[in-house]
């Protein structure tokens, strides 16, 4: 849809369809509160309506996540009612609980992965989720988080290595079967 951005009168609708839920889930990671997350996402889209979309061609996802993230951090900071924190400290603020429904997983593989994710350091988790939950590219993640590309790459790799190890250690036969099928 990036190609049709701005030219299709309905592009905002498709942007909504595509990003609304992921963005809310994303904002929720910072806000820990659904209503606030919704507000943040609405703001993000209203902002999008005003943005010069021609400049966003091909960068829509990154733009949305960046705006959403900044907005969410801002709201969280405000809500924390503490002294102003600089960015780094803000990140260190205790991260809220993961998305409620994501915790309950009947599937053993999912449980192993979610455990691995939950134990990752905040930053790695953030990057990991942006990659696999939100499907951003390394470059987009780098733009959104402000981390260097190499750091993003490192985190993803470290996270994947960990996930692989967990899966290997885990007894889930489904995973083994999948490996077999793929090999």
């Amino acid at each position, binding site marked *: 849809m990036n190609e049709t951005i701005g030219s299709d009168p309905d592009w905002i609708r498709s942007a909504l369809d595509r990003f609304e839920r*992921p963005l809310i889930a994303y904002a929720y990671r910072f806000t820990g509160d659904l209503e606030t997350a919704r507000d943040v996402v609405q703001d993000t889209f209203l902002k999008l309506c005003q943005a010069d979309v021609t*400049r966003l061609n091909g*960068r829509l996802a990154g733009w949305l996540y960046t705006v959403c993230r900044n907005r969410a951090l801002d709201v969280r900071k405000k809500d924390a009612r503490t002294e102003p924190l600089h960015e780094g400290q803000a990140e260190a603020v205790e991260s809220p609980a993961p998305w409620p429904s994501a915790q309950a*997983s009947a599937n053993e*593989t999912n449980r192993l992965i979610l455990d691995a994710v939950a*134990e990752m350091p905040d930053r790695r988790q953030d990057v990991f989720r942006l990659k696999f939950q939100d499907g951003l590219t390394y470059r987009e993640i780098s733009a959104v988080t402000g981390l260097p590309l190499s750091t993003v790459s490192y985190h993803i*790799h470290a996270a994947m290595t960990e996930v692989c190890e967990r899966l290997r250690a885990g007894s889930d036969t489904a995973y083994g079967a999948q490996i077999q099928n793929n090999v």
Partner: protein
Amino acid sequence: MFFTSANASRWCPSLRKDAKRIHSMNVNKEDPRLTAFALGELDDDERDAIGQAIEADPELQEFVKEIGVAANLAGLAIRQDDAPGLSDDQRQAVLEASELLAKPGRGAQSRFWRVARVAGVAAVVVVGLGAYSYWSIVKESGSPDGGPGSLARQIHQIDSLRLTTAEPEVAGSNEDPATLESQDYITREDSWYSTAQRHQPESAKDELLVQADVPIEAPLEQDAQRAPASTSASASTEDLETEVDANTALGLTSLDDSARSTESAEQITPRSSSLQNVQIGGEIRIRKNYYVEHPVPAQPPSSEVNAPADPQIRDLYTQAESEALNRPQSPPAEQPESKLAEARTRLNITADFENANGVTATAPEEQKTLAFFGPDATGLQSVEQQQQLARSPVPPLVPSDRESVPSGILSSVINAAANPGPPVGPPSELPNGADAKGIASRSYDIDGDGVLEDIPFYTKPDGSQVIGSTVISDAGGKPVAPSGGGGFGGGGLSGGGYGGGAFNGNATKYYFQWKTDESRVIDNTVLSSTIQAPANPGPAGTTSIAGTILNNSDGDELSVRMDRWSNEQPGKGEPDPVARERFQLSENLGDGRNNPSSGESLRYTRTKELMQEGQSYLDNQKYSKAQQYFEQVLLIDPGNKTATRLLADATVGAYKMELQEHWQQLESDQQKIREPRYLYAIRRTPGTESYAPIPVKPFTQVAQEPLSTFSVDVDTASYANVRRFLTQGQLPPPDAVRVEEMINYFDYEYAPPRGEDPISVDVEIAQCVWETQHRLARIALKAREVPMDDRGPANLVFLIDVSGSMKDANKLPLLKESMKALTRKLLPQDRVAIVTYRDAASIALSPTTVGDRITIETAINSLHADGSTNGAGGLELAYSVVSQNVIKGSINRVILATDGDFNVGETDNKRLVKLIRNSAATGVFLTVLGFGEGNLKDDRLEAMADKGNGAYHYIDNYNEATRVLCAQVGATLATVAKDVKVQIEFNPQHVAAYRLIGYENRALAAADFNNDRKDAGEMGSGENVTALYELVPPGVSTAPGRGVDGLKYQSNPEPAPPLSRESNPETMTVKIRYKDPEGDASRKFEVPVVDRGKGYDQSSRDYRWAVAVAGFGMVLRHPPLLNATWINEDGAIVTQADFVNPERLGSLTLAQVRDIAEGANGYDPDGRRAEFLSLVVAAQTLTGQ
């Protein structure tokens, strides 16, 4: 472990381009590019290179596949399809916004915002432009096709309101415009929030003063919720809107009038405000409502003025508003008049500079000019452009039949102001110049026909200004001198006077109205009452003009603002029977006629000049210049709000520029660092970590100092710390590399002591690898192994830093796990206690025998990190706990675990050192475990362990924790010899000079060797200590310029004569001095050593391993050998030329180190040697070697 080859290749173009080189580089499973490859994130060239590497290695193929599968599973596992979406309302709002904003005007609008931001336009709306409202209503009711949107727009006088000039800081490191924009957005929004929160309506008497509608910038519902004055729920928005708007319409008159009589600008300062989401015409706006306490008029307004609002008005407004709000989603139909309507909107905005009192509340001209904008405005419009607009064809707005206009509305709005119809006869107060102080005639093209008409300005004897007389123009537009043909009338508002004039030309009739009263001066600005529509538009074919002269305090005219109504006869090709336009002749007419030298006039003029200059600098982004100008304005005119605001803009702009320059500087620095020379930079002090500088020891001449003395060191912290850096893809700071600790990290197959002494000594001498003429001696000490069961009971007190910083996963949680592991290794009779410290020290577990494991583990589990650090108290408490249980023959230890600073002052520090030392004397030893990164106080911790007869270990992972606490439980806990010192006497016959590798901070004076009060290192059960000496045989020169000059006043020391005539084959003698763990007197034994001239090839595996590790450490300590750059504490780059290489390491390279290590990698029970190799490879990768 990890190494950033991806990083290196990204930063080094030559690497990136050279696929072969990448290929040849060791790609292993730790390479992040593998994952990137699996996820399709690599650039073409890297993808090819990695692809080749993967193809070549089946193991990697397997690994990449596995990552691919795991990535799919991970995507599935953490996918959150079930995340809720926006609420319907929110979604709808977004869609509406996009629809409305997607109109062609969007771009221009955002352009406007940029302009508005620069100029910091702040204006206050006059909602009470009765005349405008009137015309809007006329239009609405009379024209069935008129879109309700445009009506609503008329009702809500649109304003470009900017309350603050707060600008975001430019994030220096962010190149992404989207990010910048979003930050911008947030900051701007903050100002909305703060405003809304600051002004909570306090009284039911609050009355709407002004509504300012601005394009959406802030979250709508959220704001509504935060500002109780507004609707608390979106459901009731509509009601409130309606009510509020009616209120606006109705309240205006009274506000208007009361203000007209007495209120000053200060009295109408909004006391509270709220935000709402409204849709007006083609735009979504945030409505900002300003509330004031209902002003009580000082004088009861005249009944004429304060005519009660006609209910019809309320209905009309209500209806219009609900229509506007309930309007279907389709965009407003493109009507022929829309363009003109917009133009009119633009003109209406001229009135934005009149506040609700009907007074012009803002000052200088530039601001007025800036206000001319519309949905598709290009930003600024000059007065000329404005006049152009005024000339544009005027479409019909109402049917010619005036009867269709509700008369009630007409009267309530118009009658309030205008009184007479065109009077007949010459103006009574304007005789033919006799009573006037002066008459000046100015020419303007009033009717837009391209020909100027003369407008006479009279100055009445009382100094007030009057537009007077009649302008006569024929059809060709030729101006005709004023004549008595016009008529003047007075009356109207209290204290004011109206004049009127009419004339008949051949084709065009003009009707004049004017008003010169109501002028007040606030802040150098003329405040004039609203221009009123003519009550009687005159006969068909008449054009009416009403003007307001804006004066300054000395009575000079500043500008003439006029509205024109034409009442053309229909059917004559002129489409507009009654249309109104406004134009402004806003050149400064002030000539100082009344008071030519008045300070006020000069001040005004000067202010204006300065403002213009400043504005032009601001526009040209010369912010600091602009700052100067606005500062000057504020000196002249401290209350000038516009200048204040513009100054703020300029300041912000200047700051932005500064940041930009700073950023450019950074960029260029970065560029510079990418040059090969700066490619591999080592930070000397990462974060707030601190490392004691390690002095470089040159070769020592045996003739001068035949004795070399040092204390043993069984610490291993440095190796673990170096490993942390390398696995994180950084070269370690040189001072973090302590070579002896690296060597001693490894186990060697040294023979255990067989004799009485608890320590064995083994010396091996062979050819030096990096300087083949030199010899390299390895001195190996091994302590006796004490069987676990034989040792006395252990009495351990864990002193644990539980300050907030310890809660990272690699700190306290890691420690807790390793403590549990240790507990399982301990014997049942051992005792464990836990003291924690943060703000205060406390006992988390009083001494408990290990038999009661549940109690211990429960205590361990309940540890959590929080708060700040108070190390001193903790240490004292820990020592007091351990000393309660000191038993003869037992192992007594305080085990301190911390991640950094002890937060103790110098005094406390001395006291602590004393405590540690005294306790050590009574058999209580200290082990220090360092954790974490970024704040590690390496120097401090090592010094502390040193004083406490203990060891310092750095724990970077669970394996290391286990190794230190468990695998070495014997060594860590059971000391078999303390204060172990080594002294070596070199035989000058065989050794000319020597150098001890490592142990720099363990060096002792020769006399200290026999001084039992001199503290030294301890050796635990089975521990080994390895030291390397580089020896220079006689006849081999040391490096030129090294050593000392020859003596001038005495003969240069000759090699001491041999004790016997026969040559002594001994190269050196190794002397060891130690104390039993509980003894005070030392014992000594000696081992003579003979160099048998072994070549390197003949050396043992352990020997070579020690050489490899030492070599690695030495290379890491010498950036030049790494081809790396050293960045010192100040961030300055230390160039290679600044390095001396007194160790004369020659051409030792990482590759050599690797070769040596690979040739010695045999005895590796726990995989440590293999890990070492991977670290060497990592360093190679990092340095591109």
